[in-house]
């Protein structure tokens, strides 16, 4: 056991927080923020677990995975933001209509 597990738990917390916000908000920009925070949670878990053995050099493979993940996330965010602007110009508001929660 070591303090780095703390970060893993924080990661779990962020993931859940993001999920909650994603479901509860109807504002699109906020949903995108929520997805990003969820993603950060996942990345945090990945990297924190990679360093969980005390004193050892952390495993580089998850680091590479997270960098890939960050780039994917920024691409998705950019696409989503452009889509938000389109939705707003076409529909007139930046919310998802009903049904956003199953």
């Amino acid at each position, binding site marked *: 056991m070591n303090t780095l597990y703390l970060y893993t738990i924080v990661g779990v917390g962020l993931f859940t927080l993001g999920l909650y916000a994603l479901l509860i908000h109807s504002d699109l920009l906020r949903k995108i923020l929520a*997805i990003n925070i969820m993603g950060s949670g*996942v990345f945090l878990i990945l990297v924190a*677990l990679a360093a969980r053995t005390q004193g050892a050099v952390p495993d580089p493979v*998850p680091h590479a995975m997270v960098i890939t993940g960050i780039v*994917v996330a920024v691409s998705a965010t950019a696409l989503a933001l452009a*889509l938000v602007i*389109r*939705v707003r110009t076409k529909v007139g508001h930046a919310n*998802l*209509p009903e049904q956003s929660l199953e």
Partner: protein
Amino acid sequence: MLSFLLPQRVKLLGLLIAAGVVAAVAALGWQVAELGAQRYAIGGWGAPLGIDLYADGLSLLMLMVNAVVCLGVSVYSTGYFNRAYFRRSRAIYFWPLWMFLWAALNALFLSSDIFNLYVTLELLGLSAVALVALAGGADALTSAMRYLLINLLGSLFYLLGVALLYHRFGSLDITILSQHIEPSPAVWVAMGLMTSGLLLKTALFPMHFWLPAAHASAPAPVSALLSALVVKASFYIFLRLWLEIFPVDSSVFGELLGVLGAIAIFWGGVQALRQTRLKMLIAYSTVAQLGYLFLAFPMASYFAWKGALFILLSHALAKTAMFMAAGNILHFGGHDRIQDFDHVVQYQPLTSAAFALAGISIMGLPPSGGFIGKWLLLEAAINSGQWWLVIIIIMGGLLAAAYIFKVIGYAFTQSRKSHQTRRVPIRMEWTALILAIAAILLGLIAPWPLAIMDIGLPFSGEAAG
């Protein structure tokens, strides 16, 4: 063998590439058929360090149906996106996006690395979203937005599962994982996460809410792709994980999936019957057909898997044909309200034939591909004594018959309103028809794909029963 495609941004070089990829898939198919399952180490590093590509019967079949459908869609799109209906600025973006989607699918079916699968999933999801949004209307944009969020959410769930698996076993390769796997809390949670993420993307019953709107509001060739292939891609990953990594004998979970699948068949069928617009009807029909795929899980036997897979293949072909037919009708009459169909059969005999033939496969009448799939499922259900599944499979077929005859009925009759009509490029009609014929043919040549499924023995866990 290389299925990465550079974005051909300039114009319709697309067709050329399409032909090239089909040839590549054929070559790979020959290789796999002759030599058994193939493994290819990218960069020459080999599995734990690098990324392996892996092709066995399962991936080969997916690739083949992928190639057929994609070729069809490519040909169809040359007609569809050349119309005045679409502004040129939109049409030129279709091709690169479409090529990305196709490349993502090919990469996905070949990969044997769970993180690599995540990246391909994202590639697939983003290109699919952009393609849906291409339609440009308010509906399309809103559903594209929802689709995007759903996709990202599903991917994150999947990725978290990958993270746990990696940290438990120190590898990302499916084969290596399957050798090391053993039940532990981390594995169960990872399985739960990956399953829910993938099921969300596959739109199994309670999580299907995003599908009809997204599939119905996209441009016709895109709807065809989404229904035929994109949802199947996440199902494919799910199947791979389920068969190879996770212990198959978790029967409670399998039962649950089966029940959800059964509800999906009913719900999708009933909803489809209630729709007034053709594309919505077809989209709900997809929800129902996806339900069949999950019926195999409670049985988990050799025949059941094959049956589900067969349904998957024939549905891919038939559904593409259906959406294309819908696109033709939409283009011809300017609308797709089922009640206002006006002598569609008379004006578009080819399209109507395509729709009817595809319908035969969806309903599961002999000699179509859908029939063989359902037959295998039925046999498996009877063998394992699960009679409720038998009833569901038959009921599902009846429901499908009901909604398809509804459409065909209106297509024959005259509508009270008259409409302006436009000519549909003949190749759009022919491709729809050819794909529908392919769906029927799949039933006639059934032994052949069934034999391919055995290559590499993806279902080896079960004795042939």
